């Protein structure tokens, strides 16, 4: 009893100092005036030297957004957002297209260093040489703007395009026009539409036919400015038979006010292509009283457009005051596969409403959902998911497992699955459980010499193991640590 109680108490006293990414970088920035209007949309487009078609696309989205209402169906509660009280564009001043890293503001480089994200290729190489030959190319997005992308040249040799979205709009307009908004339509939902109007940057990846991307690609998002909405847009296209593994990480400073993050991610996998998309989301979650923190309202969707294509989402969600995201797969191609592996940890006053949609359209399409929710403190943690088979999805298969673990009696864990089958030969299986860490389990570990915190961490790591295994190795260890820190609260 007391061991659990101790953990619960510690969780209750959650100490914000635990959030080690909570520093602010003092850097000059270039901001659009507050508020949202057609002029602001034009301003953003002009700042990015965008072609006319891109501006029109944005304006169309903006006009549609004006007619839409915020969604209310998720199990999250927050005061009404004043969309006119936000800055929609902020960019570090010195990043007007740095030719090389030497032109990047040293403050920025220091920031990423502090976050453990090396941006100097030579250093990266030096750092891992001997240990392993795996390298990671990084696109660093600071506030709304991509500041640097590493390993670009080497990737180019393999034919892989990895650059900021702004650059893609200018350099590869035919690809962007063909695919942008083709998975998440402009009017998909309130936040996606808003993003379509004002998105400032993000990453663009194109892997040509038959190419296996020679290294992991990664984008590291950092919110720095105050009162600034973050609207990145990511587009990844894997041509026939291509393969790419992509990881995104996110952090933000500690701020008293809430900050809005409304990103859109679109994935397109053509015949026999495979995209693996991993997220370690650690936005600032707010303080012990629930003050501040990021509103993470994100639309992520992958389209398995070609036969035998595969899209796999893995997410470790530990941050944000509110998380509202449902990375989904449209299984259009026959024999295509979708996967969703998720760990969502909530503590303090965090609210998580997350899950996935697996839309089976093609024949013999397969999907697998493994979701592990851990609720502590006074948080609410909801899994919301849809699995559907349409008329033509003969032989579709889904397996879903969602487990919730509660730590303490002031939190809530909820499971809201929607299962819709319009095809007799589609076989869906869903299972869900809710449990807590048993006192006996804790005592057993402590009798063998583990402290109560170590025991909780050990048991939780066992609980999330199936998902951790899906992460690229470099990030699995980091994710495990992150989960322990998020749950420890003041333990340290």
């Amino acid at each position, binding site marked *: 009893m007391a*061991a659990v109680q101790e953990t619960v108490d510690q969780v209750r006293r959650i100490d914000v100092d635990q959030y080690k990414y909570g520093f602010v970088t003092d850097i000059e920035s270039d901001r659009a005036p507050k508020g949202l209007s057609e002029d602001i949309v034009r301003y953003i487009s002009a700042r990015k030297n965008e072609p006319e078609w891109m501006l029109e696309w944005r304006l169309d989205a903006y006009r549609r957004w004006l007619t839409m209402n915020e969604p209310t169906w998720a199990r999250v509660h927050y005061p009404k957002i004043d969309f006119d009280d936000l800055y929609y564009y902020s960019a570090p001043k010195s990043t007007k297209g740095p030719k090389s890293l030497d032109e990047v503001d040293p403050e920025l480089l220091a920031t990423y260093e502090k976050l453990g994200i090396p941006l100097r290729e030579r250093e990266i190489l030096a750092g891992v040489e001997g240990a392993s030959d795996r390298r990671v190319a990084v696109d660093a997005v600071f506030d709304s703007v991509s500041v640097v992308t590493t390993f670009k040249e080497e990737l180019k040799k393999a034919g892989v395009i990895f650059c900021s979205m702004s650059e893609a709009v200018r350099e590869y307009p035919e690809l962007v026009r063909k695919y942008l908004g083709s998975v998440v339509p402009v009017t998909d939902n309130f936040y996606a539409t808003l993003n379509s109007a004002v998105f400032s940057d993000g990453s663009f990846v194109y892997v040509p036919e038959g190419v296996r991307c020679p290294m992991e690609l990664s984008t590291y998002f950092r919110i720095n400015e105050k009162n600034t909405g973050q609207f990145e847009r990511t587009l990844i296209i894997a041509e026939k038979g291509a393969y790419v593994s992509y990881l995104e990480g996110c952090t933000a400073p500690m701020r008293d006010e809430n900050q809005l993050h409304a990103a859109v991610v679109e994935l397109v996998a053509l015949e026999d292509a495979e995209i693996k998309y991993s997220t370690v989301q650690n936005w600032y979650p707010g303080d012990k009283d629930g003050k501040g923190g990021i509103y993470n309202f994100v639309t992520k969707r992958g389209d398995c457009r070609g036969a035998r294509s595969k899209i796999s989402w893995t997410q470790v969600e530990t941050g944000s005051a509110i998380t509202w995201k449902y990375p989904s797969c449209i299984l259009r191609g026959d024999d295509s596969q979708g996967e969703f592996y998720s760990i969502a940890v909530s503590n303090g006053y965090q609210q998580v409403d997350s899950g996935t949609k697996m839309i089976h359209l093609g024949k013999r399409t397969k999907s697998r959902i493994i979701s592990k929710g851990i609720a502590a403190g006074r948080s609410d943690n909801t899994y919301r998911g849809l699995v559907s088979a349409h008329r033509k999805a003969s032989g579709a298969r889904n397996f879903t497992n969602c487990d919730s673990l509660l730590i303490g009696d002031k939190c809530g864990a909820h499971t809201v699955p929607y299962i819709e089958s319009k095809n007799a030969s589609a076989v869906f299986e869903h299972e869900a459980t809710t449990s807590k860490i048993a006192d006996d*389990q804790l*005592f057993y*570990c402590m*009798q063998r*010499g583990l402290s109560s915190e*170590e025991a909780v961490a*050990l048991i939780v790591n*066992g609980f999330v*193991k199936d998902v951790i295994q899906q992460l690229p190795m470099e990030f699995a260890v980091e994710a495990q640590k992150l989960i322990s820190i998020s749950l420890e609260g003041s333990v340290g």
Partner: protein
Amino acid sequence: MLKIKNLHASVGDRQILRGVDLEVPTGEVHAIMGPNGSGKSTLSYVLAGRDGYDITEGEILFDGEEILDKPAEERAALGIFLAFQYPLEIPGVATMTFLKAALNAQRKARGEAELTTPDFMRRVKGAAEKLNVTQEMLRRPLNVGFSGGEKKRNEILQMALLEPKLAILDETDSGLDIDALRVVSDGVNALRSPKRSMLVITHYQRLLDHIVPDVVHVMSAGRIVRSGGPELALELEAKGYADYVGAAA
């Protein structure tokens, strides 16, 4: 090594231990026998420091040091090991991972260096072979899907690795067939040493055929009511606990 004086413990309103006095000198093996509900398992939990028991009176000295105010993990680091009657399952945590975490936590608490992985593996392998614990079992999640015999062997394996000063075996024979009993007993006997004490808690005499104790205590209604040599166990086997149940009431 272990000195228990006038120990009283209760759960809620229920008094379970009513003045236990017991001394286990270094290197000796003592058995505690007694009818169901006499407080044997409670004694083992109180020694190991499980929460939920109110200690209303008495003291427990381990190597001359009072341990009642120490949490379970500190007692473990001091060298108290409890082999559970019902070992717990921890899904997703490989047995090997658990063993390493426990061993290193104790070493750290004692100010010793953590073991390197090859060193650790060597130790596990040696101990596991003696107990018929396969590599495959070590990779499986702790106790999940283990048979009764496998769970008990796993407990003894942990004991062998952690090298406690005092091992408390709580009904280690329960749920074991005769072959499994022999493997487990052999494992325990191999760990007998002049530096290590053991407290064997059992309802039946049969375990004591394999692990022969120096002293046998009879517990009834929360007290040690009689002590004697190994022959006492045989007497109990023949006559049952009826005398003691009556006497205590």
